[in-house]
């Protein structure tokens, strides 16, 4: 791989990493929400 492609690879990895982080946070939040919805509906 030539040197001038390296920054692009880093850029792609950075975009993927931030997307994965956001998706992980959203899924975590969804699990928490479903838990609280269940509690609220039981009440």
């Amino acid at each position, binding site marked *: 791989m030539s040197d001038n492609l390296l920054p692009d690879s880093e*850029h*792609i990895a950075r*975009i*993927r990493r*931030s*997307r994965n982080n*956001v*998706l992980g946070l959203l899924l975590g939040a969804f699990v928490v*929400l479903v838990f*609280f*919805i269940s*509690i*609220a*509906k039981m*009440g």
Partner: protein
Amino acid sequence: MTQGASLLLPTDWRDFLALTKPRVMSLVIFTGLCGLLAAPQATHPVLGFTAVLCIAMGAGGSAALNQWWEADLDSAMKRTSKRPLPSGRMDKGAARDFGVALSAGSVFLMGVAIGWLAAAILALAIVYYAVVYTIWLKLRTPQNIVIGGGAGAFPPLIGWVAATGEITLMPVLLFAIIFFWTPPHFWALALFVKTDYARVGIPMMPVVAGERSTRLQILGYAALLLLLSMAPWWIGGTGAVYGLSALALGLAFLVLSARVGLRMPVEGDTMKPEKQLFGYSVLYLFALFAALVADRLIMA
């Protein structure tokens, strides 16, 4: 960066967020929340949050579908050419899948967590915006905004139904207020971006019927809106806090509409009255629904 080069990159999550039209969504969330809070029946905070989240997801999903369908039109309009699809930062298929998943997810979550009547109205709102307005009406009739305005009018109705589980006259009036607010709001915008709409063949009222007719219709809708916004007070659904606020806000809307309705711009006009009306119309809706909630809290 060229479109080809952009598409080699994975789509940034911020572009997915941009696809949901967050600025428009803020008004949708606010009116939906107000419908929920103004309802006579209190909701569990978690369920209330979930209902508003579903409204936001539905609005975001239908906005994504709207941009997926209109990607070519958006690329030809200065106002929309920087969006993720026309600027080549996102693949069309990804936008479509995102829109479908968000829309379906919002309806399913609303049905399971809140109730299927609210979910059915949410589904209707999504189909209304993504199919009836975007695909069917927008390019066919200058009444696109009038009829399509129904899509944006659903949130307070959904919020109310999520809280009470039934449709009564009050949420229908809230629906009607936004329905009649939409034409003067969008036509004020269309008057100062007329060339953009004309270039891509969207039959907006100023392009098809002319400026004079559009300006008079703006004034007519503003007068109707004033009367309609007072109706919740007249039927006893709200107190004086809302009634007097609606009167003051509606009169200001009418005055600004009259400034637009009774003039014709000259060559090189800055269109200041039209821009002021557009800006005020957003403030108007926020303030009117805030007054509705304040009135409910005071009455309680």
